[in-house]
């Protein structure tokens, strides 16, 4: 790239030096890499590729500035005027901002869509959670009346195109914003189609489709025919047919016929202002070439021109009405406008209220610009329109109409309006005839217009075009501005978020995200015993110590505190002692034992217990080899260092359950046999051991709880009615009234 740019620079500096260029080219050829050549313009062409211009535009040096161009025009007076215009225009207008990069624009679009759809989905959130948490759902879920909900999009959507004025916004703020829906209570289709009906329906549909395709094929075939003769004949036939129809209509339905006449007239008018029969077609040109020598062709041409003249001739009004009304009606507007004219307050000379006129004029000004009016006789039709809208508007609230106002555009529009009015006035001044003014609005008579029709038309067209262009530009600007603003905001937000992320990153690294859940559990489990989460052995000891502490009040040897007083029972003395053959000798021994009741048994038991404890405690492992590295033998103790090094100490055993109970030995190994049956993990919704244990504390079975409670415990989560069609959930469940079943 750098090479390229260098190359360009050189070529710019030494433009005339062709030899140098050649040398450079040769050098570049040596490298055998194809470089993109700078665009050369060899021939003057009307179309200049925009791709070639980009390069020069990007650099500031080579820009063609409009001011520089206008400097040249200083010479003449007329040119100075143009230069000033350009200056003022350049002062006013700014270059449009660069459109957003595609990914950025897409991103904005996506975020907007996401937000919108998220809000849509949020409406369901409450319902979904309640359904999920519900102990029992009965399907179909028809506690709600069935509604057919259609958003009133067709009515609301167009208004979104228009920007809202301040007043409008304020008004909206006063009134609660509302979403409107068409809601019909859906009638149940109790008797759906039978099989035969369905078949018939399908058959009909198939027939219709076949017919359609046939017609399509026919039309395609006919469209392909290029023969002019054929087309001419076709057209004539059509006209004839229409005439026939019209005649028929005249007899049967005169009103319809009138309408048709109107249509025909309209068609004629269209033909009139089109350039037909003006001798500009291919046929006419051919004829013109021949006309010099051929009489017939001259004749034909003349005929053609006469036809055109005939067509363009104004049709004399049939009714003899007052002048003003005649002006109004002479245009080729639709009959509705004619009807409206009759009760036109302005035309009838009745002056409306000042407020109303002010408002209407303001509105009118805007309306002119926004609606690109394509009719030539702008004024009149507008007037008619105005009447209509006025009559309509008086009844309706003002707010709706004000909607259309764009505040930012107002100034521009007024300016433009003024210029337009000026021009119109110019026209009028030439032949200041009958013109009626209502408010700021000029209405020039059509007869004047007819005379200067061409001029006025041209002026209007040009004006309209300009207006349209400017309006479009403005709109674009606003749009882009808003977009850019949004983008800026979002970007700033993003950057700030990013910054935050960056700040939090190091701390996040340290956390063990994968094991989050488990760590939480440990916390809880340890919390049950001890606040510490340290996995060290010391803590374990602590834990155990704590546990022991908890148990201590239970384990206190009762012998120490409450010595149960022996009570002598005055039992009966049996006549016969038990004589069991087996037990006889035992009894004998018992007697002896009783006679020498000593503490033998107690000491034996203590010894046993001591042994048991001994067996249970883990012993230290002595890896010391006596005599290895030092003298060994009886009476010689290994050195302290060696003892420290070679004796592996076992962790002290956790205190026994029977430690404080003198006359009890509990076998802890045997107790541990139940361990594999215990749960050693906390299942999902629970955070702590305590909660989980609490959740399984109560029995559920019918033999443990009363029947009524048992029924509640075993309620099925989902009940489906037999044979009922379960339809997917729809919006009516959010909006419909609840039906009590």
């Amino acid at each position: 790239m750098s090479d390229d740019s260098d190359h360009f620079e050189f070529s710019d500096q030494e433009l005339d030096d062709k030899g140098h260029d050649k040398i450079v080219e040769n050098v570049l050829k040596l490298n055998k890499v194809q470089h993109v050549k700078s665009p050369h313009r060899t021939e003057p062409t009307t179309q200049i590729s925009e791709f070639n211009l980009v390069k020069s535009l990007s650099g500031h040096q080579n820009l063609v500035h409009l001011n520089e161009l206008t400097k040249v025009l200083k010479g003449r007076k007329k040119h100075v005027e143009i230069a000033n215009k350009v200056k003022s225009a350049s002062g006013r207008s700014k270059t449009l901002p660069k459109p957003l990069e595609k990914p950025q624009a897409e991103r904005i679009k996506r975020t907007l869509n996401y937000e919108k759809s998220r809000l849509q989905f949020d409406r369901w959130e409450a319902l979904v959670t309640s359904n999920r948490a519900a102990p029992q759902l009965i399907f179909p879920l028809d506690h709600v009346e069935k509604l057919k909900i259609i958003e009133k999009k067709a009515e609301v959507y167009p208004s979104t195109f228009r920007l809202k004025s301040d007043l409008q916004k304020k008004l909206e703020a006063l009134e609660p914003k509302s979403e409107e829906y068409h809601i019909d209570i859906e009638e149940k289709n109790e008797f759906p189609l039978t099989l035969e009906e369905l078949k018939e329906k399908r058959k009909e549909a198939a027939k219709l489709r076949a017919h359609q395709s046939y017609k399509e094929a026919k039309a395609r075939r006919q469209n392909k025919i290029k023969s002019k003769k054929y087309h001419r004949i076709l057209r004539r036939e059509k006209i004839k047919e229409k005439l026939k129809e019209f005649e028929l209509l005249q007899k049967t339905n005169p009103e319809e016929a009138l309408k048709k006449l109107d249509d025909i007239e309209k068609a004629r008018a269209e033909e009139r202002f089109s350039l037909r029969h003006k001798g500009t077609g291919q046929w006419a040109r051919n004829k013109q070439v021949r006309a010099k020598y051929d009489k017939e062709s001259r004749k034909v041409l003349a005929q053609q021109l006469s036809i055109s003249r005939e067509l363009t001739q104004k049709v004399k009004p049939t009714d003899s009405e007052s002048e003003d009304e005649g002006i109004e009606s002479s245009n080729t507007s639709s009959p509705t406008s004619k009807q409206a004219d009759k009760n036109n307050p302005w035309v009838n000379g009745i002056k409306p209220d000042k407020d109303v006129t002010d408002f209407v004029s303001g509105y009118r000004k805007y309306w002119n610009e926004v609606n690109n009016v394509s009719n030539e006789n702008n004024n009149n039709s507008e007037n008619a329109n105005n009447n209509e809208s006025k009559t309509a508007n008086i009844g309706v609230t003002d707010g709706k109409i004000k909607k259309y106002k764009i505040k930012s555009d107002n100034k521009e529009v007024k300016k433009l309006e003024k210029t337009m009015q000026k021009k119109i006035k110019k026209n009028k001044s030439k032949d200041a005839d009958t013109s009626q003014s209502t408010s700021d609005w000029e209405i020039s008579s059509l007869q004047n217009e007819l005379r200067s029709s061409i001029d006025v038309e041209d002026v209007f067209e040009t004006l309209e075009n300009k207006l349209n262009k400017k309006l479009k530009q403005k709109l674009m600007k606003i749009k882009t501005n808003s977009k850019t603003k949004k983008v800026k905001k979002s970007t700033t937000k993003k950057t700030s978020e990013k910054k935050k992320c960056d700040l939090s990153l190091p701390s996040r690294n340290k956390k063990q995200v994968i094991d989050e859940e488990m760590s939480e559990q440990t916390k809880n489990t340890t919390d049950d015993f001890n606040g510490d989460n340290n996995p060290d052995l010391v803590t374990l000891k602590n834990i155990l110590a704590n546990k022991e502490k908890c148990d201590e009040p239970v384990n206190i040897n009762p012998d120490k505190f409450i010595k149960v007083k022996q009570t002598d029972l005055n039992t009966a003395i049996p006549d016969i002692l038990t004589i069991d053959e087996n037990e006889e000798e035992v009894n004998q021994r018992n007697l002896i034992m009783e006679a020498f009741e000593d503490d033998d048994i107690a000491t034996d038991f203590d010894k046993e217990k001591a042994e048991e404890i001994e067996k249970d405690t883990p012993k230290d492992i002595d890896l010391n080899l006596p005599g290895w590295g030092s003298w060994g033998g009886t009476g010689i103790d290994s050195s302290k260092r060696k003892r420290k090094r070679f004796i592996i100490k076992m962790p002290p055993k956790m205190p026994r359950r029977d430690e404080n109970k003198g006359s009890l030995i509990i076998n802890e190994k045997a107790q541990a046999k139940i361990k594999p049956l215990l749960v050693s993990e906390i299942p999902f919704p629970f955070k702590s051991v305590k909660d989980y244990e609490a959740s399984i504390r109560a029995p559920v079975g019918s033999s443990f709880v009363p029947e009524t409670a048992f029924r509640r415990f075993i309620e099925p989560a989902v009940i489906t009615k037999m044979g009922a069609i379960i339809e997917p959930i729809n919006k009516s469940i959010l909006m419909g009234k609840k039906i009590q079943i």
Partner: protein
Amino acid sequence: MGKQTVRYFKKDESIENTEEKSPKKDVLTFDVTRVKKKPWGRRVEDRKISKDKKKVKQKSNPNPKFKGKVKVPEELIEKYSKGEGVDSKGIKTSVHRKRIEKKEKNVKFAIEQAAKTEVLLTECSGFLEADSGETTTQFTQKQIVQNVDISAAAKHFDLRLNFGSYRAKYTRNGRHLLIGGRMGHVAAFDWVTKKLHCEMNVMESVHDISWLHIETMFAVAQKSWVYIYDNQGIELHCIKRLNKVSRMEFLPYHFLLASCSDEGYLSWLDISIGQIVGQYNTHLGRLSVLTQNPWNATLCLGHAKGVVSFWSPTAREPLAKMLCHKAPILGIHVDPSGTYMATSASNRELKIWDVRKLDGPVQEYKLIQAANHLNFSQKRMLALGMGNVVEVYRDCCATAAKRAYLRHRFVTPISNFSFCPYEDVLGVGTASGFTSLLVPGSGEPNFDTLEANPFQSKSQRREAEVKSLLEKVQPEMITLDPTAIADVDIPTLRDKVEAKKNLLYLKPPRINYEPRNKAKGKGGTVKIARNKKIVQEEAKKEFVKKKMELMQEDETIESSKPQKPVHVLDRFLPKVKKK
């Protein structure tokens, strides 16, 4: 606190009113100004919503005459309560929290319902009350029989049999009686109606007898082996692995027939599958004092050294040993609720222990004559058998009894006795037969028919059998503390957590790569260094992969658990290669 389950749209009344005026009635407008702009859940705002939830105000009673539902007394609820519930803060998602809360409500309802049904327990146990200057000990059976109603009087009877000293046992519902004479006489009968099921002489010495889970089967410990008979006296099984059995106990919830032998062996036979679950030599000499703890199904053995040992089928060694007396133990029994244990020794001592804590003694008595036999009734009356005398004590556990409640003297020495469940009857087997004594207030007056039904029909019995088989408790669950099964194994849990934690910090092993000495020119030091790096990287990758697998193992195990059952045609499927 969960999200509020309100409708998304609230109909705006004002708008609706205006709507009615306008001609279009099919258009509803909804106020969306208050619609939240942020997503639902996980935000402070949503939690706030639940705070200003509607508070249910209690309406004042429109009719103060009627107070409404009678509240269940606190003590009763306390009696049936299952302990503290789940703290809903400790549940993870709001949906689960709601579910658990619902379940807690149900538990509470169950407790209340159970407390309410207490009203239905109309029967109450009575007892003998002596006038001033009299004691209940004075009352003889004759006097009692004369003073009770005819149906109760019929429950006192005397069987004079002459096949040696008799042992007697009742079924769990107290309806049927099994007696076995030393000299081979075995009889089973419905003692209330006196209808005999079977009677036979096994032609061998009979050491002990025991009902099995239903009254159609019983086991007899004969001279060398244990036999099982049905209620018609037909021998069903002869279990030779149980030989020289001296005493037998049946654990009804585990379907275990526990027995101790003269040779010092202790064994558990699962009668539902016919297998011996555990058989151990106790190394404690001849065993003849055996009882079961109904609370935790452990066996209690009394030894000559004054020690009582507790056993379960899973352990070779006793679960616990308790030095109860400084003399040989003669009798031992645990009360039906599993709270108290009574032991008697040859040094004329009688002690009551707290068997749940293995603690005590709660009470100590010195008798004039050593008690050979002990038995608790359902209402915690204690019967002592000394020679030919039976004495019954009331309230001897919590408080020290002064004198006997009842006393009965036989002609011949007593060999065994037991209280009849749900009846005020003490059945005593003597050397000359069987006597049924009336002990007012000994039995539980209200019976739970799902548990034990004295008036069980045949079909009910069958159903109960199937149900109890389905609910059979595995022998591994027999421990000193039966509630341990509902606990979480915390040490293992801690270890698991620790292991998982440590896995994260595990470092890949160092690899010392030593390149082969290659010929000159085949590759320089650069290449060697690169190879080394490659080898090390590969090893590291392998290690990380393994680690990840280990970490995910737990989750996969859980997820893979619900597998499809194996189908017959699955064998034709291509075999999955195992890694």
